[in-house]
Structure formats: C-alpha cells, structure tokens
C-alpha cells in the first residue's frame, strides 16, 4: 500500500487524532503560561517561603521525567482519592512540566529589563503590582518570546506522551492503526510528517508573527 492509498483510507482517524493533539497542546499551553507566570514571579518574591515554594516546584517538574509525572497524575493521585479524567491528566502533566521551564524564562525575562525602568515607574509612584504588570512584564515578554518559541515546540512534541494513558491523540491513533494493519512505515511516517507540519509550518510562523507584532508594539520595527 502506498502512502497515498494509506492516507486515503485512514485520514478520518488521523485527522481526529490530530484534533485531539492540537486541543491537548492548546490546553497545556494555557496552563503552562499561567504556571510560568506564577512561578516566575514567586521565584523573584521577597518572601523566602514563596521563593522556596517556586524553587521546589521548578526542581520537581524540571528534574523528573514528564512520563513519570503523567503516570503520577493519572495512576497515583487516585490512590489518594483524587481522580483525574485522562484527557485532563494529559494536558495537566504537560502544562505543569512546561510551566517549570517557562518559570525560568519569565524570571530571566524580568531580570533582563533595565533597572531604570523600575526606577522610572517608582518615580511616578506606581504601586509594586502596577510596576510589574504595566511596565516590567510587557518588556519582559518581548525579551522571552524567542526562547518561548522553542519551548512551545517541545510542548507540542511532549503531548505525544498522553497517548500512553489512552488519550486518543495522533500518536494513540497511529499506534492503534499500526496494531491492526502492521503498516508501520506508513502510519508512523505520516504521524512524523503531521507533527513536523504542526511545528514547522504553524507554530513557528505564529511565534515569528508574534515577535514581529510585539516589536511593532514596542516601536522597534
């Protein structure tokens, strides 16, 4: 069977799997951004306890395997009475994992904003929260967009692991098709191409566009 015949026959399942992968990606991204922001800010807090909390979070989620984290959320938490539905467990694990990496980007982006910006914001008597939210974070965001692009690609590829807890994403569908047809080269070849197209022709151009958009907002372009 040629690859074209293969796609002609199995495209509905591949498409539905791709849809789930994209949904997992979007949900994990939203969660990941929220966690990155929260942990990045806590990491810079004056309170040692809050800082300690963020450092512990980052260490745990960056220092251990994403797959193990996924299994913990899906298989171990129920032992403590917390049951998480598989779809939720999937994007939660990926989002929480990416959040730990993102937190360091947020922290670095904030520290890269020149000290004079803090001082100017203080000189017009802005509160600490407004200084951060209105003056520092927008500039930090521009600083951290390029590395965020890489992180997003990592995140997309990371979502393939959710197939291991039976979330019916692209990888799950590919394995199912392989199990019944043994057309390994075709099915995993197509999966490879779909991941590549998502990363290279959708995600990367979007991040580039976002960088240009932000540069325009900053009056740089």
């Amino acid at each position: 069977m040629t690859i074209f015949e293969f796609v002609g026959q199995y495209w509905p399942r591949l498409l539905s799997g791709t849809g789930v992968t994209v949904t997992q990606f979007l949900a994990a991204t939203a969660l990941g951004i929220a966690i990155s922001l929260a942990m990045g800010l806590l990491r810079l807090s004056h309170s040692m306890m809050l800082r300690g909390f963020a450092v512990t979070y980052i260490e745990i989620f960056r220092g251990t395997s994403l797959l193990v984290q996924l299994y913990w959320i899906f298989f171990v938490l129920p032992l403590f009475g917390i049951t998480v539905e598989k779809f939720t467990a999937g994007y939660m694990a990926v989002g929480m994992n990416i959040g730990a990496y993102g937190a360091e980007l947020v922290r670095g982006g904030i520290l890269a904003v020149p000290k004079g910006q803090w001082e100017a914001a203080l000189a017009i008597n802005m509160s600490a929260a407004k200084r951060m939210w209105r003056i520092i974070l927008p500039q930090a965001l521009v600083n951290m967009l390029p590395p965020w692009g890489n992180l997003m690609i990592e995140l997309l590829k990371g979502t393939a692991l959710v197939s291991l807890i039976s979330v019916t994403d692209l990888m799950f569908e590919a394995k199912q098709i392989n199990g019944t047809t043994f057309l390994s080269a075709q099915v995993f070849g197509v999966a490879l191409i779909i991941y590549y197209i998502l990363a290279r022709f959708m995600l990367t151009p979007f991040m580039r566009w976002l960088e240009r958009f932000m540069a325009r907002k900053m009056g740089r372009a």
Partner: protein
Amino acid sequence: MENMSAYPQEISGENIPMVKFAKVRKAYGDLVVLDDLDLDVAAGEMVSIIGPSGSGKTTVLRMLMTLERINSGCIYVDGKPLTHMPANGALVPASERHLRKRRIDIGMCFQHFNLFPHMTALENCMEGPVQVLGLSKAEARDRTEELLEMVGMIAKMDQHPSRLSGGQQQRVAIARALAMRPKVMLFDEVTSALDPEVIGEVTNVIRQLVSEHNLTMLMVTHQMGFARDISDRVCFFYDGKIEEQGPPAELFGNPKKERTQQFLSAVKEAV
C-alpha cells in the same frame, strides 16, 4: 537602631523648608557615600549640586526619590518626614505605604531618560495620572498635552521612544514627571547622555520651568555654565559632604575652599 527622639515628628512654624536632610547618612558597607548630610531647600528654590564623581551627588537625589534607603538621619518633605513615619509618638522607618503617600510630592528625571519603550510619548506621560492619580483618560490627556506642548513635543506625541532623539526623549521625560504635579523636581545629570547639539533644547525647558513655575528643584549637573545661570544656590560636594555652598556668583566667582578651586579649575580646563 538609631534613637530618633532628636528628630521632630513634624516641622512647624514659618519658613518650613520644602526639603530637609537632617544628619542623613548613607553607606554601602564600609564605603560612606554621604556623611551626616544637613541640607535645607526652601520652597521654590533651585539648588544645583556639583562635584567630582563619587562625591555622593546623585545619591542625594536617589534618597529623596526613595530609590535608596538611608542608614540614619531623616529626610523631610514639606515639613513631614519622608523616610520615617510617626508611630506611638516616635519616628520609625517608613513603611512602603507611607512612602507611597509621601513620594507623590516628588518627581524625577534621569540621566538615561528611562521612558517606557512600549508606550508612545503621550502614553508615557498619561501613565502616572491615570494609573496612580486615578484621573480619567480625557483629563489626563488634557493635562499631558499641555505639558507636551510646553516642552515642544506635541507634534511627536504618538511616537515611541525608539523613534525619538535623546533630547526629545528627555523632554518627554520632563513632561512625564511634571504630569504628576510634584512639589519637588529632581534632575539627575539630565544632559550627560545627550549629544552636545541637543543639550540646549533640554536646558531651555528647565530654564522655562525655573522662570515660570514655583517648583522646588534639585539638579545634579556637570554643566557649570548652566548651573551658574539658573540656580539660586550651588552646593559643591566632596567626599560625601557639602564642602562649600552659596549663590552661584559667589561659588563660581570667588570659591573659598581649596578643593572647590581645584575642582572648578579642572572643569574649566576640560572645556
């Protein structure tokens, strides 16, 4: 901690200085930057601070803007303590809340302008009035456009700082500080980062402020001619202390202290 009982909780009577440094000391570890500084600035007075680098000039302004904490002594603005606050009949170091309440009287312009790069000139100036003073956008815009007109930047008000020259950015920064209607304005080497040909456009704005407004101003500068022209008083700082001070004609024309003479002649040679 220092016993604060020697410092009044409020200065009353006639002729309250707008700014008062009372035995203010600032040190970084063993390095003493300011040594028991006493300095009164009257309301409406323009005081220039000159001196060699490392003499503590800029630190004076930064402490007044509350960008730096002081180690001992007390700073008063308009008769009320800035760096301290009264609590149970004594002065204690100011809380962040107290600082926010008192800082409102002070505005500052920086050597490197520090405009917010993600906002236009107009937005830079409206940010404080809207976000801090709680003005409506329309009110803030009226106030801000008037100031941008005064500094000659109304035509460029929709430009981002990256599109403006140094002199233009500094004029916007002056408008931004004035938009908060401070009682005291601080200028920290505002012409030092500028190309020679645009220094005049910034100093002209400051001249206009001096002649048309009753602001109290402290200015750190390396431009002796400018300081001489517009100041009511010039303070020469050396080694964390005021070595000599007086009206500009006196200090520049007939300096009494040897260090002042040395500094002024060194500056003259450089020009």
